[in-house]
């Protein structure tokens, strides 16, 4: 009899703990969101015969001149504010052209956007750069979130990440 009561208590204690801990775990997992996107999601704008070339994970500007790309993202509205973002890029020979990468989070009708930018140093090779977007104005407006950049010739984007919280 005593043994049965003990088992009961043990089950109840386990349930209590599970009931208490599970929401915390689920809450954390769903609220914070950090998504990584391959560069192959990027597209060249204003051109139906683009010179962007895709390989595993990466996109390369094969044009002899700078081309503007946009790279889409999936906004997780429940996650809330964008807290940080990164871009992993590569310069291959062109170390003279300015290269700035922007992130924008816009209102639903696209009439206003918040933004941030990072500048790619003028050195050859692969670099991962980080930025922070203060999206106070547009985080609750159900507008889109994306990256855009005028990519120098031979420039590549391997990956971009966006953290929301």
């Amino acid at each position, binding site marked *: 009899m005593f043994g049965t009561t003990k088992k009961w208590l043990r089950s109840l204690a386990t349930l209590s703990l599970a009931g208490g801990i599970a929401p915390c775990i689920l809450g954390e997992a*769903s609220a914070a969101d950090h998504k990584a996107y391959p560069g192959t999601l990027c597209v060249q704008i204003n051109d139906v015969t683009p010179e962007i070339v895709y390989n595993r994970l990466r996109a390369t500007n094969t044009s002899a001149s700078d081309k503007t790309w*946009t790279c889409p993202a999936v906004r997780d509205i429940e996650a809330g504010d964008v807290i940080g973002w990164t871009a992993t890029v590569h310069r291959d020979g062109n170390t003279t052209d300015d290269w700035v990468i922007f992130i*924008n989070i816009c209102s639903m*009708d696209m009439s206003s956007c918040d933004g941030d930018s990072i500048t790619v140093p003028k050195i050859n090779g692969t670099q991962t750069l980080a930025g922070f977007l203060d999206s106070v104005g547009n985080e609750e407006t159900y507008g889109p979130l994306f990256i855009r950049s005028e990519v120098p010739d031979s420039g590549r984007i391997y990956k971009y990440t966006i953290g929301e919280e």
Partner: protein
Amino acid sequence: MQHSPMRVLVPISIAGAIAFGVLGDAVAADTKVHSGSFCVEQADITPAIEYYVDSSARNSGTGYNNWQCPVTRDNTAGGGAGDVTDWRVAVHRGGNTTDAWTLTLYSCNEHGTSCDSDVQTVALTDSGYSLINGAAVTGFENGGMTIESSVPPDCWILHYRIVEE
């Protein structure tokens, strides 16, 4: 006066279970906004889809073109049910207010051979930005999801969002 351990544990258990239910549902609802540049033209190696710097997409062709706008599904929404309760598409007709235009959300099995769907029509009078409201789509929660549309010339998809619960 002494409280029995069971008297203490039972309320904690119930509170934990209730909290699990309430918080679990609250955090599991999922709203994802997708940039229009996720859309691609279907079955065409020389597509007329044109992307813009705000991550929108336009049909630059002279006739209708079929587009697929992929949806990132969250199968953990609603504790695994993942039903679509709402979907919306921000569109822009450009100068075209004469061609009929519909958008269909498909929720399909793994092979896309069987789907539930919801069709919405973009009004002919629409010009400029407008938001199309979709209805709930249930079923096939473990398959893929896409928005399909035969897009008239000079018409745009700015962004689209899916709410799962």
